[in-house]
């Protein structure tokens, strides 16, 4: 079945929310509990271990702040892409989406430099304590950024041809969610000490 042939099931909208956006909300809901479980585990350990603050002091607040800025800006592009898609301007939406994934790329590059610096200092995943949570949380989040970028580029290539414009909003929603996760990771990992 080619992508252009959709079942009628896909085109109905019993809830009043288009099917694509509906599934995006459910994906976000399930992601909330995944990140929530990991964050809850981290927070309760962190409160129980005040000494982890010493490890947290090694993280680079400026790099974290810069990355927050990058993600916020990319979120702006994503929502502008949604606006463009609403105006049926596919090529513009595609351009903005590509800018958004460029933001993701910058984010990952900065993250990579951070990890390299941390590892050079001898803090690795198996260092235990704070560091195992630091790498797991940022790693899981980084994977989401990466996945979002790839999907976004695919959506952008369709949007450039004015196809599947409803997907622009959906990938945007997902991207904002990833942004919100980072909004909480930033103080939890970089500021609280």
């Amino acid at each position, binding site marked *: 079945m080619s992508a252009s042939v959709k079942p009628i099931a896909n*085109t109905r909208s019993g*809830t*009043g*929310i*288009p099917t694509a*956006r509906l599934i995006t*909300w*459910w994906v*976000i*809901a*399930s992601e*909330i*509990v995944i990140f*929530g*479980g990991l*964050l*809850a*585990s981290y*927070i*309760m*350990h962190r*409160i*129980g*271990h005040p000494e982890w603050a010493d490890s947290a002091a090694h993280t680079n*607040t400026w790099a974290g*702040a810069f990355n*927050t*800025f990058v993600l*916020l*800006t990319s*979120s*702006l592009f*994503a*929502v*502008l892409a949604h*606006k463009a*898609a*609403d105006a*049926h301007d596919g090529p513009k939406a595609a351009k903005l989406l590509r800018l958004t994934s460029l933001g993701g790329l910058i984010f990952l590059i900065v993250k990579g430099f951070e990890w390299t610096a941390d590892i050079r200092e001898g803090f690795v995943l198996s260092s235990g304590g704070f560091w195992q949570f630091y790498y797991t949380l940022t790693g899981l989040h980084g994977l989401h950024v990466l996945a979002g970028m790839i999907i976004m580029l695919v959506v952008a290539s369709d949007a450039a041809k004015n196809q599947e*414009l*409803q997907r622009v*909003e959906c990938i*945007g*929603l997902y991207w*904002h*969610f990833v*942004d*919100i996760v980072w*909004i*909480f990771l*930033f*103080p*939890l990992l970089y*500021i*609280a*000490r």
Partner: protein
Amino acid sequence: MATEAHVQHPNYVKIWGILVVLLVVSVLGSMTHIRNVVLIAAFGVAVVKAYLVAKNFMHVTIEKRWVPYLLIVCLLFVVILFAGVSPDVMKHSGLHWSNPSANAPAQPGAAAAHE
């Protein structure tokens, strides 16, 4: 089938500006090294930022009502998880039990925890 224009698009750049200002506030707040200021700057601001993104970028407030409810219920489950687990994991001693290894991983000898 394009999405129907269901939102009045607000001025996104302005909201982005507010978010960036908030980011600066939280970073500056963390420089004070005063515990309460840092905590508010870090987490209070994070909640505000998350709300702004959810409201203005994700449009949850004008989505069908049950969508924000769904997200809140999922958050609630995480809170329930936290409430049920933290008495055991966050604390290192309780009624008739203690977790000496969590306090001092390398220290030998387990202190008995009498109430």
